[in-house]
């Protein structure tokens, strides 16, 4: 500024007239220095940092840990003067991340292949004529990387300017505002003014379905969605059409994105080109409160973050969990939240003599149930837990029913004869992350794509990374990776068990074979024969070893693993037909026709789904977003949900209702707080109390007795008819209804 004032004084005309006008203004002329003209000159004029400076220690970005698979192969590189050791195959960007420097990027994603087309990650490397794309350049030993030099900064400003040239001024109406990579990086790394004065180009929107909203004008052609769809989802739906400024992302044919992982492109897209259609224009991200919880729509237990505004759930976003769901969630998890607002039970109700329900107070409802339960004989009492029940409520239900003298309490989905003695006979023994090490998969009677989408994503990842072979026995289905269809029923299974099938050689030569059996097989009458055939295949091919247990069972419902751990199994087949008092705790898949006409049915749940129409008394409970419950996923990993929104109306938590009912009925359960329930669970199944830990099964299948039954020839049937409508919440959801009308393959 001083130079400018002096210069202006020199060139100001020394006439009195003008001086009087300008005396109260200080004319400032713009003076330029050689350092400001070009980045190279600025680099030259910067003072050298003193040698042997003691630099403060640095932590990797985001608290990441670096895994050295081969410690001798570590290279040393220098990032901004700081020496870091990285494994051999690391790129410059990854090396900078280890050194704690976060380099801006648009097209690079740690779980997708490298594209290198956005050029935002340019950094300066010594002895290189031009800045290098750090996401693509491998780190060589002794490389000196500089990320905050004027050249790197100028490169970033330039890239930002180019990206913003054709980008529409949509921030006020764009849903990504507030969480947009383009906004954040232009504030941090962009220049303050642009030089574009022509007309911006616009692109026609594509219809990708009822879930993903596209505004393709905002697309910056980073190709993250294209790479995601082809690599992680396994469907080659999206592609880049055209060249230059006319490039468009689309499906080319008028095709909807029918993949069950299609909602993840919404998270991946750095700008507002692909956004969530149900969440469009509903809320801004800064007014939402995020609660980290667990999803219960299937048995995987994906980690989610529920964004809520007041009492309403606005959207569901995935959370990072390397072992279970990485960074993805299925469409059902992501979009079924609007079922939480429809058809909710909010008051206790009793069915009147004219058949209609009347809302009553809790006192009256519990008093009525407590009266009736004493008028029936003990073995006519039946308790059925639903597919979304948490471990605490199932424990209290089992205790209550047992103290009333009855043994008939089970979880829906477990047929007669399923025994829960050995945990290895109903869990995914290779954990979900362990499936990545398998090289041959045999899927028996299961369709992981609709039963547990995240397990399917993991198999897809393994197939893609190490060319694993997949074969399946069951009804013909669509898979998003190459797999062989061996057969449809137990006959094929017998052939493989006896060694007559050509697939047996593949199994024998596999280093880590994995067999995944679907829990739908538990409902078959010849279940024992089928499972013993599977076990003989496992034994013949060395599938179960001390270091690798490849015999897995894929459960269908979130409550099944915990139910089997707690001992909620069906002892007698005729229990339901001869029942006089039926307590349905969220059980909607029960065959209502089997309940006798004179039985007294109590339904405790959060949605008015199928079983409510048969109930005599309704007790409203809270849904998974409103309660703190323990859920165990299909691999034995215990997790807890956290309440994100308050309960609806007069609803209570499930376990509290059963505990209050027990007190009104005169049965005194020895606990009255959630800690008491958990200490009771600790006595029965201590792994359910250790949250965020996976408890593997202790014994292998070798302890099971021999089975003498014969297999029937009925082929395996698909368990999940409609992927989008499997539980009470999804059946009440409008978005799921739209999806099942439009996106299901006919």
């Amino acid at each position, binding site marked *: 500024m001083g130079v400018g004032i002096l210069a202006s004084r020199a060139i100001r005309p020394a006439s009195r007239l003008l001086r009087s006008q300008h005396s109260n203004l200080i004319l400032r002329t713009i003076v330029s220095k050689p350092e400001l003209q070009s980045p190279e000159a600025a680099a030259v004029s910067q003072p050298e940092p003193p040698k042997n400076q003691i630099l403060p220690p640095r932590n990797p970005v985001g608290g990441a840990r670096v895994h050295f698979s081969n410690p001798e192969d570590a290279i040393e590189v220098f990032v901004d003067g700081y020496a870091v050791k990285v494994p051999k195959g690391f790129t410059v960007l990854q090396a900078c991340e280890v050194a704690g420097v976060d380099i801006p990027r648009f097209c690079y994603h740690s779980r997708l292949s490298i594209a290198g087309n956005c050029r935002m990650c340019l950094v300066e490397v010594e002895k290189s004529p031009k800045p290098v794309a750090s996401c693509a350049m491998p780190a060589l030993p002794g490389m000196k990387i500089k990320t905050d030099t004027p050249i790197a900064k100028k490169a970033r400003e330039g890239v930002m300017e180019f990206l913003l040239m054709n980008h529409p001024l949509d921030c006020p109406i764009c849903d990504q505002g507030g969480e947009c990579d383009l906004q954040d990086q232009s504030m941090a790394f962009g220049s303050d003014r642009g030089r574009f004065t022509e007309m911006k180009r616009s692109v026609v929107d594509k219809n990708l379905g009822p879930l993903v909203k596209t505004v393709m004008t905002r697309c910056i052609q980073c190709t993250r969605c294209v790479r995601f769809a082809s690599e992680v989802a396994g469907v080659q739906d999206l592609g880049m059409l055209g060249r230059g400024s006319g490039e468009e992302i689309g499906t080319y044919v008028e095709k909807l994105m029918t993949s069950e992982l299609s909602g993840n492109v919404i998270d991946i897209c750095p700008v507002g080109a692909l956004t969530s259609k149900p969440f469009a224009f509903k809320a801004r991200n800064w007014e939402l409160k995020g609660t980290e919880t667990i999803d219960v729509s299937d048995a995987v237990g994906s980690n989610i973050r529920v964004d809520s505004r007041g009492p309403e759930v606005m959207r569901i976003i995935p959370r990072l969990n390397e072992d279970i769901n990485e960074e993805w969630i299925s469409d059902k998890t992501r979009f079924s939240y609007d079922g939480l607002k429809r058809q909710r039970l909010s008051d206790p109700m009793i069915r009147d003599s004219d058949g209609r329900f009347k809302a009553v107070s809790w006192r009256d409802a519990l008093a009525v149930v407590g009266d009736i339960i004493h008028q029936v004989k003990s073995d006519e009492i039946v308790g059925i837990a639903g597919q979304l029940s948490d471990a605490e409520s199932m424990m209290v239900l089992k205790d209550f029913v047992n103290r009333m003298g009855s043994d008939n309490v089970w979880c829906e989905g477990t047929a007669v004869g399923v025994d829960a003695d050995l945990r290895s006979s109903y869990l995914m023994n290779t954990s979900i992350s362990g499936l990545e090490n398998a090289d041959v998969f045999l899927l028996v009677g299961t369709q992981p794509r609709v039963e547990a989408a995240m397990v399917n994503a993991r198999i897809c990842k393994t197939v893609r990374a190490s060319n694993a072979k997949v074969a399946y026995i069951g009804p013909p289905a669509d898979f998003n990776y190459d797999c062989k269809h061996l057969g449809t029923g137990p006959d094929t299974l017998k052939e493989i068990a006896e060694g007559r099938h050509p697939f047996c050689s593949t199994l024998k030569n596999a280093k880590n074979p994995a067999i995944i059996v679907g829990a739908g097989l538990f409902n078959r009458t010849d279940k024992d024969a089928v499972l013993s055939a599977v076990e003989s295949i496992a034994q013949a091919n060395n599938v179960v070893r001390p270091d690798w247990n490849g015999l897995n069972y894929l459960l269908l419902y979130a409550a099944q693993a915990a139910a089997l751990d707690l001992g909620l199994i069906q002892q007698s087949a005729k229990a339901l037909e001869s029942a006089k008092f039926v307590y349905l705790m969220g059980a909607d898949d029960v065959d209502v026709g089997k309940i006798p006409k004179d039985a007294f049915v109590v339904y405790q749940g959060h949605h008015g789904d199928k079983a409510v129409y048969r109930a005599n008394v309704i007790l409203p409970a809270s849904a998974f977003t409103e309660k703190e419950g323990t859920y165990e996923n299909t691999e034995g990993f215990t997790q807890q949900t956290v309440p994100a929104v308050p309960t609806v109306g007069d609803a209570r938590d499930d376990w*509290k209702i059963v505990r209050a009912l027990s*007190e009104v009925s005169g049965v005194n359960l020895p606990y009255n707080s959630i800690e008491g329930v958990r200490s009771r669970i600790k006595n029965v199944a201590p792994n359910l109390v250790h949250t965020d830990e996976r408890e593997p099964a202790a014994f292998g299948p070798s302890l099971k007795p021999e089975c003498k039954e014969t297999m029937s020839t009925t082929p395996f049937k698909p368990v999940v008819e409609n992927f989008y409508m499997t539980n009470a919440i999804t059946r009440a959801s409008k978005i799921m209804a739209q999806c099942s009308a439009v996106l299901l393959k006919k």
Partner: protein
Amino acid sequence: MAAPFTLRKIGVPPNSANLTEARRRVFDFFRAACRSIPTVMDIYNLQDVVAPSQLRFAISAQIRNNAHVTDPKVIDLLLFKGMEELTDIVDHAKQRHHIIGQYVVGEGLVQNTGSKDQGKSDFLKNFYTSNYF
């Protein structure tokens, strides 16, 4: 009949020096309140609803509620609040339903419905109130 009692507006009295003086003040307040009962019954037409003895019982129950207090300054403050309430009632600043709801103990009123939950545990009482306990 004796001359009707008039509640004279006394300015803020100085703090009581010790417990004896505070005790004396409490009894003076009780006497003043009981002497204004006929006026109150007349103003709010409580002749058929309640008997004077019941109102006296209500006042003494409120005072007995705070019988455990020993600090003279706290007693002074409670008396100040009580005097304020009494002045409001006598000045017809309240209405009939306030008096009946707050001071008349009878059937179906808030004070009497506690008997239903007598034999029940804390868990059940909390359960009937709300989900969060």
